[in-house]
């Protein structure tokens, strides 16, 4: 064909170096001229071969478009904020779901731990409430009177009445002291439950003492709130007197066990005294329940 183009023009066409009008002419001609088409195919193969051979050199030495793209991507990634990265991370469905589960679990654990803290606090709050426990007073003459030969063994009721009268004076004195002096808990003989607890933790010589003290603390809380309604004045007085006797026994036995932790007799008596106190407090709660059931 007369209008066939030379090899240089075809190569320039492949390299994209022709002007637009000439480019269009070459394209139309190649479409209808078999010789030029063959020539273009050969030129294409040659240039493909040459590019593949020199590709590494071109990529490293010449700043191509791909290189610029990579550079721009890297700069863009550097400019992304931490939050965007985190957000992008959490866009993944599995990660998102797992994270939400973790958050809910964390909240649940936090709530549970808070509640445990509250329980501990409430137990701690119970302890100082027991300030109305009467201070025990050791009266040596009381023991002497018990052991004196004049103790009338044939008439236990009379002996009890005598004893009750003596105890009455003791309790009365203590009650009056308590009313007049709010600082009674500072006295060394005062049996304060908080002190009890302190002693228990510091001088835990008796096996199971902690459980006795916890039970007593729980019962005392209930009894203190109801004893005014349930007990008549005479019963209330007897109750306070017995409580003073038991507290006195506990205090004395504690001191003895502290002095000699191997004294099994003292431990036995201490256990029995704790049990007596529990029984005494339980009697008030049981009476309350009975009266409530009959209403």
């Amino acid at each position, binding site marked *: 064909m007369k209008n066939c183009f030379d090899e240089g023009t075809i190569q320039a066409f492949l390299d994209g170096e022709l002007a637009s009008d000439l480019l269009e002419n070459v394209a139309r001609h190649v479409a209808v001229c078999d010789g030029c088409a063959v020539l273009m195919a050969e030129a294409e193969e040659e240039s493909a071969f040459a590019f593949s051979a020199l590709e590494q050199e071109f990529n490293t030495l010449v700043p191509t478009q791909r290189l610029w793209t990579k550079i721009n991507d890297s700069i863009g990634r550097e400019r992304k904020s931490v939050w965007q990265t985190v957000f992008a991370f959490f866009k993944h469905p599995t990660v998102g779901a797992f994270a939400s589960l973790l958050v809910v679990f964390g909240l649940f654990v936090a709530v549970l731990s808070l509640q445990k803290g509250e329980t501990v606090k409430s137990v701690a709050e119970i302890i100082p409430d027991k300030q109305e426990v009467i201070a025990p007073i050791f009266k040596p003459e009381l023991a002497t009177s018990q052991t004196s030969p004049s103790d009338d063994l044939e008439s236990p009721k009379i002996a009890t009445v005598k004893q009750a009268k003596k105890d009455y004076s003791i309790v009365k004195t203590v009650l009056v002291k308590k009313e007049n002096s709010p600082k009674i808990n500072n006295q060394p003989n005062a049996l304060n439950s908080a002190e009890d607890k302190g002693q228990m933790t510091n001088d835990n010589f008796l096996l199971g003492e902690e459980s006795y003290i916890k039970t007593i603390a729980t019962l005392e809380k209930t009894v203190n709130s109801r004893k005014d309604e349930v007990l008549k004045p005479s019963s209330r007085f007897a109750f306070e007197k017995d409580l003073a006797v038991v507290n006195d026994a506990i205090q004395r036995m504690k001191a003895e066990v502290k002095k000699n932790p191997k004294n099994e007799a003292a431990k036995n*008596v201490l256990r029995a005294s704790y049990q*007596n106190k529990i029984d*005494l407090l339980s009697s008030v709660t049981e009476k309350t329940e009975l009266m409530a059931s009959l209403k």
Partner: protein
Amino acid sequence: MSLSSQHSALFSIKMRKIHINLILIIFALLLSIGASFSLAQTSPPKPAPKPHNKVRKIIKNSSDTPAEKSIAVDAGVNISLCVSDGKLKINGWERNEIRAFVNGGSQVGFYVLQKKKDNPVWVKVLGYDPTTNKETDAEECLAGNEIELDVPRNAIVNIKSNSSEMVIDSVGKVSVENAGGDVFLNNIERGIEARTYEGDVTVENSSGAMSLFSTTGNIIAFDVSAQEVGDIFKAKTSNGAVTLKNVGQRQIEVGSNSGSINFSGEFLSGGQYSFGTSNGSIILTIPQNSSFRINASYGYGVFASEMPLQNIEKNAPSRIQNLSAQMGNGDASLKLTTVSGAIRIRKQ
């Protein structure tokens, strides 16, 4: 880019958005569940349900004659009743019949809870007659100046009382809980559970397992025995004395806070006896041929025995003494504990 690839790209973007929205919804849902749960947990605890304070209507007996009713029952009938106020007397008789009598107080009636071969085996004695009275809030407890019940000799009696002095005689088994008032029990065959919070408990000529409790009263038991091997006798008072004479159970546990304990009788072979006080004496009056091992812990009191004790062992000098000793072959076991009371063993 071809049309199909554009479509697929758009589809994938939409799917991604849906995924994100779905995750956000799930997250919000879980968060709200967690928050509501935590709120539910941290909210203040509900107050304990208050007892039923609705005042029940006492159905008074308006008749001139005392209220009296009877019902035929099984010989071993179980009888339940409550008494709000009044003297109660229950007596066992040979008839298979319950007769209830109330003078100067409420009406009386029976409610059969269970029957066996047409015979009532569980009956509730009421302060009104349920067959004639249709009050919905009628007071169930009996009240009156005199309340008397005749019941079969073998009956089991369960009583709850607010304030009542009770005398129960010749029945099979008794369970009593009394807020205030003395309890006298005589000739009870198969066991007693008596509890009074203000008053004395007295038991005579009875057998079976026994649990006697008083807060501010004395406990007295005479001539009681076990009905079966292993029947236990327990007595506990806080502010009174315990007096026991001829107690035949082989396992005895007795305690008093500020009262004394007096035991008079013999220690049976193989028996286990435990006596404890805080501030009262323990006095044992026993036959000269007694045989027991003793273990006594006492604090500010004394230990004295009129009987010859052998193998006496005392712990090292201490404020709290521990003494172990033996008399005879040591067939019974005694445990005595007191803080500031005396322990005395006397000849019978």
